């Protein structure tokens, strides 16, 4: 179809546009899976050479082959860790974090092969193996990361329904104000239930609750269950007051659910970074110990 959409353009400004617009491609398919291919070939190459290169007495980190893989692997780990800095520094230059993430993900995966082949499968209870284990855990958490990055954004978008975080909180506050007014005519017991929902702290639910998401039982739902029984007040034959409160409680529950779901998805999208990053720091420490001990004691 390309010919259909060809455009005549001055080159200098076309270039600016090109630079500015970044193609509509995800980090995984960035540049037609360039980094996936690089990483694939690299891994394949390492596996093949591992099999073909004859190292005496057997493969281990200390052979010339092991040293080569070790240097490449350590270099990669340091570079992969640098993403944490790159991400937070919007310096000039034509880098794109998408490109970095793409390379990070695929080259990070190739470490499984490079790192493991580097050990020559000589694992034991020592600092060297600790570094390897940490590396594998970082990679594993990264793999979880890309699964959530690939699957959750859509749910986040759908749950948001064009509302911003502030708007959700605002909306809850508005409903609360309306509830307070609407609860005035209620009987004492009913009003107390409503007040209990208003006093409930929606956000102070703690880490576990963040993951639990919507639908949980809380003061709002209890009040809803309680007030939605069929018992009109004597002086309010049409049950207007209770109906209004019920409608508002329903709205409140839905609003809380939206907020909880939002918090849950965000938590799932972020939680792995709280493993990935600290483990990276531990890995860097273990890696340093590993390298230092190799050069001092080998």
């Amino acid at each position: 179809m390309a010919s259909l959409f060809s455009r005549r353009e001055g080159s200098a400004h076309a270039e600016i546009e090109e630079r500015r617009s970044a193609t509509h491609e995800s980090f995984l398919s960035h540049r037609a899976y360039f980094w996936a291919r690089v990483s694939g070939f690299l891994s394949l190459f390492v596996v093949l050479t591992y099999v073909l290169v004859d190292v005496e007495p057997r493969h281990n980190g200390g052979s010339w082959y092991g040293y080569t893989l070790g240097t490449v692997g350590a270099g990669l780990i340091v570079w992969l860790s640098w993403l944490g800095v790159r991400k937070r520094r919007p310096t000039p230059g034509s880098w794109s974090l998408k490109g970095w993430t793409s390379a990070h993900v695929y080259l990070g995966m190739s470490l499984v092969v490079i790192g493991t082949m580097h050990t020559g499968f000589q694992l034991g209870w020592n600092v060297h193996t600790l570094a390897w284990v940490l590396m594998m855990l970082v990679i594993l958490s990264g793999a979880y990361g890309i699964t959530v990055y690939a699957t959750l954004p859509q749910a986040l978008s759908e749950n948001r329904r064009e509302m911003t975080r502030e708007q959700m909180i605002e909306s809850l506050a508005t409903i609360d104000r309306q509830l307070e007014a609407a609860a005035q005519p209620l009987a004492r017991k009913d009003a107390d239930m409503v007040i209990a929902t208003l006093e409930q702290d929606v956000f102070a639910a703690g880490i576990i609750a963040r993951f639990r998401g919507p639908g949980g039982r809380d003061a709002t739902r209890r009040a809803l269950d309680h007030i939605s029984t069929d018992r009109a007040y004597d002086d309010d034959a049409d049950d207007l007051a209770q109906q209004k409160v019920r409608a508002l409680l329903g709205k409140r529950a839905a609003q809380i659910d939206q907020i909880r779901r939002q918090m849950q998805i965000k938590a799932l999208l972020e939680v792995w970074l709280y493993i990935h990053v600290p483990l990276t720091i531990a890995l860097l420490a273990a890696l340093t110990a590993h390298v230092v001990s190799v050069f001092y004691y080998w």
Partner: protein
Amino acid sequence: MSHVLLEKTDHLSDTIYKYQKGKHVMATPSSLVLRSDLGFEAGKREAILDTWDRQIADGKVTVRLNAEVTGIAGQSGAFALTLKDGSTIDAEAVVLAIGTQGNPNLLKLPGAELPHVQYQLDDPTAYVDEHITVIGSGDAGIENALGLAADAAQGNIVTILNRGTEFARAKGANVKLLEEAEADGRIFVRRETSPLEVREREIVLETRDGQQAIRCDRIIARTGSQPPRAFIEGCGVEFTSADRAAFPKLSPSFETTQAGIHVIGALAGYPLIKHCMNQGYDVIEFLDGNTGLKPADEPILAEKFAGLPGRHTVDEWLEIFRTRVIILQELSPLQMRELMLDSTVHAYARGEVIFTRNEPGSSMFAIAEGSVLVEVDPDDPSVTVPIETGSIFGEVGLISGRKRGSTIRAAEPTVVVEFSRLAALKLLATAPSANRAVNRISIERQVLQIFGAGLTPADIADLVEEAEVVSVPAGEVVIEEGAEDKDIYIVRVGSMVVEKDLGGKPVFLSYLPAGSYFGEMAVIDGSKRSASVRAAIKSEVIRFPGEAFNALLDAKPEIRERALADMASRREINDFIESRKASFGGAVDMYSQTAQFLVDNGLGEATDVLLIDEQLCVGCDNCEKACADSHDGLSRLDREAGRTYAHLHVPTSCRHCEHPHCMADCPPNAIHRGPDGEVVIDETCIGCGNCQRNCPYGVIRMDAKPPAKPGLLSWLLFGAGPGPGEASYAWRKRKAAEAGESAKLAIKCDMCSGIEGGPACVRACPTGAAIRVSPERFLTVARLEEEVD
């Protein structure tokens, strides 16, 4: 001198009095010296008002407050001013410095003259048990509606109308209050609704689902205000043209066409306080007989003209420009000065490039000396068309807001005047003959540009003669599918959407930016219209009669060939979409609806917009953080806010409109289009907030630049400072208190102008969710390919 200062309100300087409390008032332009005896320097509103009140008292100025002038009769030397309270004042000369706040805009509807239509609401508690409709979705309208509905005991049924879906013009706080009131059922908010007719006890509304009449006992219209033009015209003063933006005709001593009446300040077209004050000084000097006084802007102009060859004085240059350049001949010396203040002059050597093809630019040029050559063929720079002394060029960029169509070089040593977009628009609005001349030239050049090399102005003279510029409101259909008419059109301003009815639903075929033509198929092969074309936004098209176009095709076979080639490729797109519709109907509908959604959200007038693919966005806000960190610590984008359709999200961020609304009313003219097409606000911003109110997408914020944060490493290692991204309001406030307050100025996206590598938001997105697109690149069937595959 015997004098009196008449003031409508109970305090002086009402415009400045109405600024928000504590506003930092700017004293731009800094290159201009202050002549007036009253002091003025940048500072807080209160301090400035105090100084003036004190100096007015010390200077023994005769002031009469609460004295609104309602009419001026008589002649120079014997005027009689009528005040609102009925008293009159005699005067030999009058100076009008009444600003532009003026009077409210009146409704232009049948029935608008009925007595229950009002434009002001002094006391919202004065009405009970009424059905009241508020027209106008700005702050004034919302505040009035809230006031009327505040006390349920009054029993008013309050409805507020909004032409759009969002209240983008109003302050966030007001919108929230309104939405709450709506949720409580205290106010009825009707979106996408505009008034059609006012009747006794009823108002007819145009809604999305057709017309509807609702009960209405009172209408409060708050749709902005009009300059006090009628009042001034009533005093016998003529304006330069009928255009809304026109100013009174003035002599170099600020005298109007009514001898003895003078106009200065914002009303004379000079909205900056320093200009206003200087003119106040000048006009009194003139009245006092000091006719030799040089205008205060003389040194500024002298500096502008310093680089030109042939040592002429400022007055001489002004006269050269005025007499040589055709479109300037009607102007008065004062208008020339004003125009030149907003313009630049350049001298070019033979062969020097003035601008290049595809460069963004919206200024217009006039040749005062020499001539230029236009390279009409992009592939062969030797094919050129000359433009002679006195004529203009660059007008297409000005009118369409699009990039330059060709490269232009000086043919000999040449002196040109470059009118900034604003200056040029003002010129066209105030000088009708200039407007006509530019229109004709622009139509001719646009035809030449579209149908390419080989044509001369003589070939198309007949066509241009019959051309007509038609303005088309947003959404209006220009060509109806199946119709038999045979005209051909060029999009001059704005953009069009081409749709075809497939299976009862309009399917989006393509997007036509300004500078494209349409309607050629029916003209060439005599068929019925094969698709509908309607305006994506408020647009202007040039209409040519089909026969005239056919005559041109008959005379010029190469043009026919070009047109046929274009037609074939358009057919190909249409056929492609039709075939997809048969097999992937759902995908095509989705594509059509997405295109419509994007057009509704400003893509139709955008040059470059940020979109977020919410199938990829993980909500990390790295885009916002990167924006803040590369722009003085304040983010110019609000990722979460804005509309979403089919996971395509249009965040609140500048669209870099072709005709930026924000530029319309900026006193220091601080908003420009930069070298890459970005719309930027420069450091001369005075913080008046006009642009914020004028931007329909709510992307401009007014904020003070926060002090610098500690560096990234000290945050990473020691937790110093607030970390990456925009610091919290509390942090900024605390730091600002330490560092000394700075002025709140307008800030918005500048597309990372000057930052190598381009926009930080896009570069900082880890997943590729954030993309920047231009409408003609994004609204193509290529997207359909993407969706389907």
